[in-house]
């Protein structure tokens, strides 16, 4: 069966890592795994737009060539379907720099990679530098890992705002896990705490990466970490 995943995957192989490829496909939802002939013209446009921004982001040196190859693969799939493939939701577009709010559910380890990619594209979309975008992705990776390892499930919210002189990206990681006891929290930030999985360093690392950092945690109630990245406009 020919799907976006098989066709585009073959094109991107060697240019974009497997990890990133998978995250890109996950963003396409049901469309990535639907047979190509089940996709409507609109689906194909959405897919093409999404692939274009991802390819520009992750394979800037070869983007033109890869984008053309993807367009060819979609065009070669035959006439588009008249109605939408079942279970093919539209994804949020990547274009424009308008303010946006996204809420990502973190439920298992695979969500860490998607959250990271989502945060990365959001950072690039609103115009943060390449380095800042990697920092955003790293911070989200740490926060998502903490959720999966310690609370099981939770959410990560991304709020981007264009202000007069700067661009702000706020990341809020929240869970209803066991929370962190005050003594442990002090130890974490004093650098004396080491968890079994070596993650005592995660929160400290996030704090060092971001421009603003706040943590609200109550034993038995959960944890909420909020941090902000700023970029000049």
């Amino acid at each position: 069966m020919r799907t976006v995943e098989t066709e585009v995957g073959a094109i991107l192989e060697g240019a974009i890592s497997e990890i990133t490829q998978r995250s890109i496909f996950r963003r396409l939802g049901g469309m990535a795994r639907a047979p190509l002939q089940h996709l409507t013209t609109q689906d194909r446009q959405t897919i093409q737009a999404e692939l274009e921004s991802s390819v520009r982001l992750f394979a800037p040196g070869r983007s033109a060539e890869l984008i053309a190859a993807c367009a060819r693969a979609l065009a070669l799939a035959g006439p588009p379907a008249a109605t939408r493939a079942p279970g093919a939701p539209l994804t949020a577009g990547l274009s424009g720099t308008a303010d946006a709010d996204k809420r990502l559910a973190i439920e298992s380890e695979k969500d860490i990679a998607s959250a990271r990619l989502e945060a990365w594209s959001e950072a690039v979309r609103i115009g943060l530098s390449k380095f800042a975008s990697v920092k955003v992705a790293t911070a989200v990776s740490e926060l998502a890992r903490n959720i999966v390892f310690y609370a099981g499930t939770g959410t990560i919210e991304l709020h981007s705002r264009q202000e007069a002189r700067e661009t702000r990206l706020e990341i809020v990681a929240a869970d209803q896990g066991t929370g962190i006891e005050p003594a442990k929290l002090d130890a974490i930030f004093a650098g004396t705490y080491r968890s079994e999985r070596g993650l005592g360093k995660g929160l400290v690392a996030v704090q060092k990466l971001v421009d603003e950092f706040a943590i609200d945690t109550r034993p038995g109630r959960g944890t909420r970490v909020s941090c902000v990245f700023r970029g000049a406009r």
Partner: protein
Amino acid sequence: MNMLKVQPVQVGRATGREERAQAMKRKDEQQVPIIQIRGCLLVSIQTELHDRLALELKTALMERVRTLSIRGVILDVSWVEVIDSYITRILNDIGKSVRFMGAACYMVGIRPAVAMTLVEMGVELDAVSTALNLDAALEKLELRQ
């Protein structure tokens, strides 16, 4: 020993779609190929590492270091776009284990933005040496004899 495949599980561009879909499925089940080259082991990290996979990789590496008299292990992270403290710990763990066996451990291909981020986070990668690229790492390992 058979936990990890010796040969790289690269799928060529020309292979059939079915095969590719199968290969993707297989990779979902997680394997990290280990390649032996000039008395060294080369590991290119291209999948998302997690606890079980990291342990399998470490075990397989140590087993091979012992049975094949390997002088060094090279971890290629040029495909890794984000390295957080968890991945750092895994890499450090592998480095430490390999060193205990008497072999050297090099990390190559770290991306500039990743390196800068690690510096800013203040995490230490003290159990692995670094080299600019694979050639440089092999050279250093050969001189080490």
